[in-house]
């Protein structure tokens, strides 16, 4: 790795949908962390019986680090709830299944939770490509689904029993487009990976930017895992926009950032969506001066939660996805409490209402008419001397 990852706490470093952290980088993150780990609090002994919900997370496969972090968020939330009054006087149990990071295994896992575990709600997954088919399956089974990690706008239409505790790409896209317009760019060219995340970003940024009166000169989708992206980048360059808008991550980010520099695209502004997912891995020279946006999740509750996480696991967040999973569990618990039963339809009816007053560790989680998180704090940042600094 070219650069020791420097975590800026001010940036929430939410990394929607993508694996931004290599295993090795994770290790070096925990250098300064306290090695003291404290056990999770025991459950309140007065709780009688169980209320069971399910979760499908990528515990194996390429996104397993995220899955592990989501699992931690769920554990913390469950411990907090059961330490207190539980749900409807009962103990909350979250049954966690592995999605293996693939759509078919995710559905298999959801099937098992629904048919064997008889759960009325399932949290999951991380990748849009898996969350969408899983939520569609859950909808067909009449079970509530809560997405704690995917941001594809297609999740908007998975059904009235389906929710998200993370802002979708249309929210991020609108924020990005407004920021670009504000910076005075009249035309942009976009590059994103050819997957549901990438297509969602391209669609939402393009739509919002054009609504602002801007022009999208070209939008390219690159196939992941290639060794060379000059063709794609040259198309961007040839379309002669005011600024380039890119979103890349992990596998391909470094190559793309390198070639952006080599091909001279850095002569114009390069705007990076979710910049913390590729900037830290890039050659510092290639991303110096880059601007971009990322998730900002500093809130009063957030800080206390971060401390709890560090105490429990002996390290800082290994991704930013634990918080959304935490919020998913807590929101569901409040929904069940408010509905007075664990009936799927009743929970779904109660969730939007309780969300209005719910203070999440990732900030307010107000669900809109489609059951999606309607606002999420973002921040604009810039790379200075190799570090991401908020503007």
């Amino acid at each position, binding site marked *: 790795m070219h650069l020791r990852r420097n975590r800026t706490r001010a940036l929430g470093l939410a990394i929607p949908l993508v694996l931004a952290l290599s295993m090795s980088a994770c290790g070096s993150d925990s250098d300064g962390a306290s090695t003291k780990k404290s056990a999770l609090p025991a459950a309140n002994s007065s709780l009688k019986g169980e209320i069971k919900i399910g979760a499908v997370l990528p*515990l*194996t496969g390429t996104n397993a680090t995220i899955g592990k972090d989501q699992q931690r968020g769920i554990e913390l939330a469950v411990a907090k709830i059961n330490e207190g009054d539980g749900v409807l006087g009962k103990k909350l149990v979250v049954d966690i299944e592995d999605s293996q990071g693939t759509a078919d295994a995710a559905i298999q896992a959801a099937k*098992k939770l629904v048919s064997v575990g008889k759960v009325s709600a399932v949290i999951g997954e991380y990748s849009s*490509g898996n969350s969408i*088919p899983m939520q569609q*399956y859950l909808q067909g089974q009449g079970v509530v689904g809560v997405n704690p990690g995917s941001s594809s706008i297609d999740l908007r239409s998975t059904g009235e029993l389906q929710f998200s505790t993370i802002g979708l790409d249309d929210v991020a896209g609108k924020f990005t487009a407004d920021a670009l317009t504000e910076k005075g760019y009249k035309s942009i060219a976009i590059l994103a990976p050819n997957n549901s995340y990438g*297509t969602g970003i391209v669609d939402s940024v393009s739509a919002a930017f054009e609504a602002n009166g801007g022009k999208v000169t070209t939008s390219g989708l690159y196939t992941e895992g290639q060794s060379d992206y000059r063709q794609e980048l040259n198309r961007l360059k040839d379309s002669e926009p005011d600024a380039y808008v890119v979103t890349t991550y992990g596998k391909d980010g470094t190559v793309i950032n390198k070639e952006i520099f080599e091909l001279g695209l850095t002569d114009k502004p390069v705007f990076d969506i979710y910049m913390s997912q590729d900037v830290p891995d890039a050659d510092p020279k290639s991303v110096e001066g880059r601007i971009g946006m990322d998730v900002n999740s500093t809130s009063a509750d957030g800080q206390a939660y971060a401390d709890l996480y560090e105490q429990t696991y002996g390290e800082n967040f290994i991704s930013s996805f634990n918080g959304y999973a935490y919020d998913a569990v807590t929101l569901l618990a409040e929904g069940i409490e408010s509905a007075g039963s664990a009936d799927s339809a009743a929970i779904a009816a109660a969730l939007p209402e309780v969300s209005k007053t719910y203070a999440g560790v990732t900030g307010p989680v107000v669900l809109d008419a489609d059951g999606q998180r309607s606002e999420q704090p973002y921040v604009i940042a810039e790379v200075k001397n190799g570090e991401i600094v908020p503007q």
Partner: protein
Amino acid sequence: MVDYLLGVGILAAVYAINALSLNLQVGVTGLLNFGQVAFVGIGAYSVAILDSHGVHWAVGFAVGGIIAGVAGALVGRLGRTLSSDYWAIATLALAELVRLVALNQDGFTGGAQGLSAVAGLWTNLSGTARDTATFATIAALLVVTYVVARRVRNGQYGRVLVLIRENPDLAASLRHDVVSAKARVMALSAVMASVCGGFYAMYISFIGPSQLLPFATFLVFTMVVVGGLGNTTGAVVGALLITVLYDGTRFVRDWIDISADQAAGIRILVIGVVLLGFLLVRTQGLVPEKVRTAHARR
């Protein structure tokens, strides 16, 4: 537990149909089809695409079968101008082409996102009852496929196919149309694979390009080789064993502390080693192909 076993059982049966299809091509006829997953994909996408337009699944199966069958026949005819090893590469290329189309023609394939919410089977049932009914359906389908594969393999057509595998010139000199025989067996196998794909899309309710990666074909190759190239029963045995092995290695992280990335590597490694080991040490597989001895006694 019952549901888990049913899940594994359904998976194994799907793979067994796939292995029977591949065995007809590779084992019986000696056609090294490295692009088997393309036929599965054609079946799955046909059912899923038509379903998303509200067409009944039966039509999806028929359309998928026809497209796959025609594609199979054309691929079989390609063997006319390509020597067997380059034909194998061409089939791999063809499968990649199908995946590229699925990935890039998002208008009707759903692109990288794939197609989800495919109508399932036995929607009037739920829970274990539904899984049982689904299992019964695929098991019945497996039995039919097995009988068809066996009759073809053991009948007069199979006799010609084995001769084509062993000595195509001899077959041609004895007035057997080698090109047509290959094309027809490819068509039949492609239909089998497409039915299996269509069923899988319905069972999982989803199909996406990530399911069309070459490793999917490779897994079925391992099943056929382990079971015994050319043996119909062997294909089913191999499918069962490898399904259990591959599914079982998912739990490798429960035993040893390694990163998820490494666990994924180990799962693939195990399959690769099993295949190579069988090729080196027991090429004939667990259930070796029998010598054909029709009517040998008066």
